[in-house]
């Protein structure tokens, strides 16, 4: 009888510990998502030039990370999350290429792909109009220049500069070697500086 009670008590404690640990890991994941989601959205948006689609891709990446990798050490989350997101972005871009070809075949242009960065620009907050205009214009020209980069250079630049991943994390996110990351990043910066000219020097 006593043994039965003891077993029950141990079992209850075990469940408590498991529950607490699950809640802690859920809270950690929540903090991680809250930290990266806005930057991830902007990175996706710069890549695909559509905020609604970018929101869907970011949400999908968050769900996939939570479903498949929530149990992994939290240090691995950022590279894994961006790897998922980059894959989803590439898939989206491939689908767009096919869709555009089909539309051209049927004689219809891509009418809904006219991206207007000014219309999609965020609301200003606490800056003078001149400052706001300067920053906005700077970001606009930067986005245009980034869009002109080859895909791998674009990924390396955004993950290193915007997200702040180190070389190893960027390599994991891009699924390539650290040497390739350094090469892509260096070429991207060189190309962007040339494109943007003295305004950005």
């Amino acid at each position, binding site marked *: 009888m006593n043994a039965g009670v003891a077993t029950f008590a141990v079992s209850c404690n075990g469940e408590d510990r498991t529950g607490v640990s699950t809640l802690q890991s859920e809270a950690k994941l929540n903090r991680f998502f809250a930290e990266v989601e806005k930057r991830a959205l902007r990175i996706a948006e710069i890549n695909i030039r559509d905020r609604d689609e970018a929101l869907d891709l970011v949400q999908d990446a968050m769900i996939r990370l939570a479903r498949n990798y929530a149990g992994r050490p939290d240090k691995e989350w950022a590279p894994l999350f961006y790897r998922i997101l980059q894959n989803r972005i590439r898939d989206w871009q491939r689908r767009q290429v096919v869709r555009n070809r089909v539309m051209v075949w049927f004689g219809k242009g891509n009418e809904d792909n006219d991206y207007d960065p000014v219309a999609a620009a965020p609301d200003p907050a606490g800056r003078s109009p001149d400052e706001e205009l300067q920053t906005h214009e700077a*970001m606009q020209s930067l986005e245009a220049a980034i869009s002109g980069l080859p895909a791998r250079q674009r990924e390396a630049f955004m993950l290193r500069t*915007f997200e702040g991943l180190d070389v190893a994390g960027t390599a994991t996110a891009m699924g390539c070697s650290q040497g390739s990351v350094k090469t892509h990043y*260096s070429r991207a910066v060189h190309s962007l500086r040339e494109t943007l000219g003295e305004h*950005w020097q």
Partner: protein
Amino acid sequence: MNERNDVTAEDTFSEKAKAAFDESVDNLDGETRSRLNRGRQAALAEIDRKRSAWIQWAPAGGVAAATLLAVVLWTGNPAVDELAAPAMAADIEILLTEDSLEMLEDLEFYSWIELSDETDEAMEPANNVG
């Protein structure tokens, strides 16, 4: 010297780009932030759904495991094999008993009798004539 200048220029450029990017992130509108928040909650709900699915299927898994164990224990019972082996041996024993050989000898005997009867029948008219 030039290389160091290039690195410094690259760093300066990256810092400026990061500042402009951060600015655009900070200026995201309320609706977008709200949609991101909803997306995050949906992702976190996925963990709960996965866990509750596991808990839901755990009893069924337990029953399946217990059934499998019972089947293995039942079919893997050595007593069944012990019974089957002597049965096969008994069949062979029956086939090889002396009775069976005697039966074969009897067959030869019956065949000889049949043959001799036919011979007698064939001889009978001659005897009658005699």
